[in-house]
């Protein structure tokens, strides 16, 4: 009956989103009067999970699962959910979780709600609040099936530390050759950079920066704040910055704690993608830029003057508060 959570890790370390998923699952388990079971893949030391409310860890150790594989992971999680008779399975909204969740839902004959932003409104009927219309609205979705799969939006719930230690158990799902018909040939990933998906802060530049040669101050601010860098669509379309940095409706979604937009006018497609960020700051020389209507804090000024000054002050602040 336990609430099952899929714990994501990278290079042997748990992702922060997984702690959030565990914290959320703990509260759901409380509502349902049950416990939390986590599934980990190829991680030796799982003791940290107890701190976020996990009662039991099913440890999968299988060399075939070193690369993420949606089909095989969905199969393993299905078997775990079946063994535990889980009625609720919670995942994050990472690229990998979004990839496997629908496959998992079909295997479990479960209803799936993605982009969930709060605890269930009620357990019976099981109703959750989620975002829709690219963050322009919410909807309350009732899940009618016996088993429910939930995708929890990043930063929607936060981390909740709990007192406790999880028990561990080895778990060996039986995987078939059909699970391995999509194979990873190569992975291209900057290892030393904060990703937009994981970042607490995202610093973004737009056309107002006039050219790729002016991105030094954006990168500097990102370095000071430990932030990811991003850009608007025209900037990536013109090739000033890589496509992977494009945030907005057709690019990557941003749900960071802080979003700083520099020289970005704030076209509606851009705002649709970054609306879920908690605090938004805009720096733009045009007071009529639509971004000012969407932002919490704004500076009307020339980015080439404001940003270097702000970087200096942010550095001082960080050194003082280190």
């Amino acid at each position: 009956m336990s609430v099952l959570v899929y714990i994501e890790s990278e290079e042997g370390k748990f992702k922060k989103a997984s702690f959030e998923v565990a914290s959320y699952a703990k509260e759901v388990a409380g509502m349902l009067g049950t416990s939390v079971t986590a599934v980990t893949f190829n991680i030796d030391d799982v003791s940290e999970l107890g701190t976020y409310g996990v009662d039991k860890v099913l440890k999968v150790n299988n060399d075939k699962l070193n690369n993420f594989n949606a089909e095989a992971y969905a199969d393993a999680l299905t078997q775990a959910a079946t063994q535990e008779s889980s009625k609720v399975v919670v995942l994050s909204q990472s690229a990998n979780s979004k990839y496997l969740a629908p496959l998992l839902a079909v295997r479990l004959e479960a209803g799936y709600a993605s982009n969930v932003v709060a605890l269930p409104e009620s357990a019976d009927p099981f109703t959750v609040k989620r975002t829709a219309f690219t963050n322009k609205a919410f909807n309350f979705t009732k899940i009618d099936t016996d088993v429910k799969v939930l995708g929890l939006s990043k930063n929607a719930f936060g981390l909740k530390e709990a007192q406790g230690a999880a028990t561990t158990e080895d778990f060996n799902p039986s995987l078939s050759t059909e699970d391995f018909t999509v194979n990873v040939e190569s992975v291209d990933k900057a290892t030393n950079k904060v990703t937009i998906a994981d970042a607490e802060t995202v610093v973004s530049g737009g056309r107002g920066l006039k050219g790729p040669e002016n991105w030094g101050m954006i990168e500097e601010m990102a370095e000071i704040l430990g932030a990811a860098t991003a850009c608007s669509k025209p900037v990536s379309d013109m090739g000033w910055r890589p496509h992977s940095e494009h945030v907005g409706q057709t690019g990557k979604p941003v749900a960071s704690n802080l979003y700083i937009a520099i020289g970005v006018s704030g076209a509606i497609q851009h705002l649709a993608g970054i609306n879920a960020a908690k605090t938004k700051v805009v720096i733009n020389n045009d007071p009529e830029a639509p971004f000012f209507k969407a932002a919490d804090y704004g500076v009307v000024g020339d980015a080439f003057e404001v940003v270097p000054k702000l970087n200096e002050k942010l550095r001082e602040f960080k050194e003082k508060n280190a």
Partner: protein
Amino acid sequence: MKILVCISHVPDTTSKINFTEGDTKFDTNGVQFVINPNDEFGLTRAMWFKEKQGASVDVVNVGGAETEPTLRKALAIGADTAIRVNTPATDGYQVAKELAKVVKDGGYDLVIAGRESIDYNGGMVPGMLAGILEANFINNCISLEIDGTNAKAVREIDGGKETLSTSLPLVIGGQKGLVEESDLRIPNMRGIMQARKKPLNVVEPAETSVKTEVVKFEKPAPKGDVKLIDPDNLDELINLLHNEAKAI
């Protein structure tokens, strides 16, 4: 190669989002509907396969008659045939189930859908369709090459990309990158004229089982006004970000 492109009929990005009937229905009054942007990238890639490698391209939508202009637009862009499954789309699983029947009946090798629609943002139809069909599946796909029955694809991952190899039959959750924005086609007069004569087949739904139901909509609380900070007083910005927003 037989390609099926799934087309969602969605409100244009600039639409005002309002609800009626006690916040239980989306208010379509004055809303302009378009092909879901993520689907349009997939449709354009499908046209590339048709023109460069030889393929037939059909488009499908699950929805009422009001979605037909959107299917006609896809025909004007170059699809051969349109199929409309005559039932309102209410739940991702129901849509995937209806699409699965169309794929089986039509014997399609490759199905391209958008990674998510910009209205409900469920992000589940392509994966569920693949799951139901037991076909291979690649999500967040930003590049796709087909050689015989082999496929090579690139998917976006958090912080980078991953190159994958697989084979047909295959379902793609596509997005920008399958083609670039500049490759998207605006239907010309000839395309629009031809689209009027192309077949748009209406098929009846297989079943109507749903697993989820939207019971209510809600609009976000109105946002307060932006706090403007003097560019000569950036200490104030740092103070607000630290003490008020608790963001740094």
